[in-house]
């Protein structure tokens, strides 16, 4: 705890040093009655307005805890961190440079002051029809809301499930993105020379179902998968072709790489690993009825187990998503999705399943519902996201209240509630991790 404060103080110190000298302008806010746009602009740019590049960020404290003891985790606290994000941006006529880094002290892992470079890239356009983005970047595509089918860029499920801000749902990729426009279809090609996995649930902070042990596990069985980190050999390749057609966005996708979670198990080495994966998919999104509709599907080809006979490797899958969102009243939006995950070689899976292992269903059906209400001139946001699977009989409920105190300060609180009948289902395995969290952020 002492350590926590000392690191917090270090970060705060760096921060105060950075903004000192500019505070005179900050405190010079008079209550002039006349609206002067130039003066107002000066005021909002007070901190780093004089620099030759953009410099922004935030300073945040965030804490969360389990609502009940988890026998597999020693800590009740799931989140206790002080975080400073610094964000540089410089745009020249021909090239853009962005760097976003987080300095944080994590009171749960107690591993000292850490730096996480979230984005470091240059972007430029060598020809009018082409764009290049090179470096560490956040990548997203696809149409789902918290359900990703054709988006195989790294996610951070730990952050997501313990209540870090939404931006941390995505983890960065190190790679090259090429985009081609002005053709009948637009093309994005992404090459990642060294595999970037998800920041998956490994047991360190959240407990999970370990299929090898056949029970829930946590700190007692932290997953250390074989590393797939050979440059250019363990590479990932993703592409998307898209175009607008009568107001609808149509996409074709492909991915050649690995399952993003260590879902394979090498019983010779007794180690989890990331088996090879190819994905081929399509999506469409656009106005339907009184709102927005989306449909997305993909074939997941589990390349190391094409027949589906290896019980230690995932089966190939068909994934399908159908969604609809509508603003049903002023500042009140309702969105709903149906999601299907179907095993392609179910009979082979059943026949080869070792005795005593729990067999999962051929199809996993999931429904989601999101309610969002904005109040008080959109400064107060109430949202509720629910994911429920009737086939797995499990659910995840995520209420959140976010309030913007003013243009600099904001606060939020929320919870991640997991329920499930069985230990081995997708959401049910997290049922000991139900948590609540609270945060306060100052942005500059």
């Amino acid at each position, binding site marked *: 705890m002492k350590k926590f404060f000392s690191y917090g103080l270090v970060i705060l110190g760096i921060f105060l040093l950075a903004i000192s000298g500019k505070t005179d302008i900050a405190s010079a806010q008079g209550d002039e009655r006349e609206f002067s*746009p130039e003066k107002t602009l000066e*005021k909002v740019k007070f901190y780093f307005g004089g620099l030759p590049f953009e410099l922004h960020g*935030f300073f945040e404290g965030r804490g969360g805890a389990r609502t009940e003891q988890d026998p597999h985790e020693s800590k009740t606290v799931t989140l206790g961190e002080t975080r400073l994000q610094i964000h540089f941006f410089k745009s020249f006529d021909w090239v853009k440079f962005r760097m976003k880094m987080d300095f944080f002290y994590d009171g749960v892992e107690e591993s000292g002051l850490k730096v996480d470079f979230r984005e470091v890239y240059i972007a430029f356009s060598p020809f009018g029809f082409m764009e290049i983005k090179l470096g560490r970047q956040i990548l997203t595509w696809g149409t789902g809301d918290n359900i990703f089918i054709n988006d195989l860029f790294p996610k951070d499920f730990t952050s997501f499930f313990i209540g870090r801000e939404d*931006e941390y749902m995505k983890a960065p990729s190190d790679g090259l993105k090429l985009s081609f426009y002005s053709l009948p279809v637009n093309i994005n090609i992404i090459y990642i020379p060294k595999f970037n996995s998800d920041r998956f649930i490994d047991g360190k902070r959240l407990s999970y179902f370990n299929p090898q042990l056949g029970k829930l596990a946590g700190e007692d069985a932290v997953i250390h998968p074989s590393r797939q980190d050979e440059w250019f050999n363990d590479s990932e390749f993703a592409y998307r072709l898209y175009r607008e057609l009568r107001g609808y966005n149509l996409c074709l996708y492909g991915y050649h790489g690995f399952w993003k979670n260590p879902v394979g198990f090498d019983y010779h080495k007794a180690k989890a690993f990331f088996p090879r994966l190819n994905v081929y998919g399509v999506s469409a999104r656009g106005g339907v009825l*009184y709102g927005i509709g989306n449909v997305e599907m993909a074939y997941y080809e589990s390349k190391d187990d094409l027949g589906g006979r290896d019980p230690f490797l995932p089966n190939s899958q068909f994934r399908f998503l159908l969604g609809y969102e509508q603003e049903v009243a*002023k500042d009140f939006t309702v969105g709903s999705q149906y999601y299907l995950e179907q095993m392609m070689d179910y009979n082979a899976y059943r026949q080869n399943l070792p005795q005593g292992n729990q067999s999962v269903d051929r199809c996993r059906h999931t429904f989601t519902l999101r309610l969002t209400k904005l109040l008080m*001139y*959109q400064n107060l946001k109430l949202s509720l996201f629910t994911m429920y699977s009737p086939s797995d009989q499990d659910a995840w409920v995520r209420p959140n209240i976010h309030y*913007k105190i003013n*243009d600099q300060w904001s606060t939020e609180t929320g919870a991640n509630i997991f329920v499930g009948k069985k230990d081995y289902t997708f959401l049910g395995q997290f049922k000991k991790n139900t948590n609540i969290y609270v945060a306060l952020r100052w942005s500059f």
Partner: protein
Amino acid sequence: MKRYLIIMLLVLMPIPTLAITAEEVVKNYYAAFYYAGSDLKAHVIMKLVNKEGKERIRELTMLRKNFGGEGGEQKYFIYFFQPADVRNMTFMVYKYPARNSDRWLYIPALDMIRQIAATDARSSFVGSDFTYEDVSGRNLTADTHRLLREEKLGDRDCYVIESVPNEPIDYIRRISWIDKNNYLPLKEEYYDVQNEVYRLFTADKIEEVLVTGKGQEQIKIPTITRRTMKNLKSGHRTEVAFITVDYNLGLKDDIFTERYLRNPPNEAIK
């Protein structure tokens, strides 16, 4: 016979020059206010002030291009500088004359495009007192317009027009004072169901913006560079100022596509 003809001519002649219908006034108003120039770029600052005097600031660049004539399709591109929670976000609107707009928001921290399900054009634009419709315009045929009178507002000669929505919305009628010279709205009162004024729009500053017209000649486009929308019931108000405004820049069509939504053009960020 000749005498009758002269009388008939005298009776008929002045009619087209004297009388302007309410629809024509509003049509000219929408054209002058929402469709001026072939395209527009404005650096905008908004000040949102609540009843206690607490302020919030929004700073953005707005690009707008007309596709088709007055009252036709338009595309908007917005890039946010302030405040922190929307910084670097881009927002794109395709406005159609006969159906709901399409809207997209790009969240750079997640590299995510969200198409926004917003059927309600009366919802607030970025938490301000202005609605989406106030920003991008309302369909001419959505209301029944009536010319109430002609009068001076300050030193400006105005048409006073009443517009009653054909479908029930958050106000039952709007009274507009429209400048006879440039057709810009100088003041508007919105009446709620109790028939009381609850929203008040005022044009606080009008500037003649010098632009190069189609034939390369210099023309002036009168532009409202300062405006206020005040909610009289809540005491909340929003003041908007154009720090810079330019017309007819020749913005390319593809600025209003996913490419630039993800990677905002220099036109927007500088």
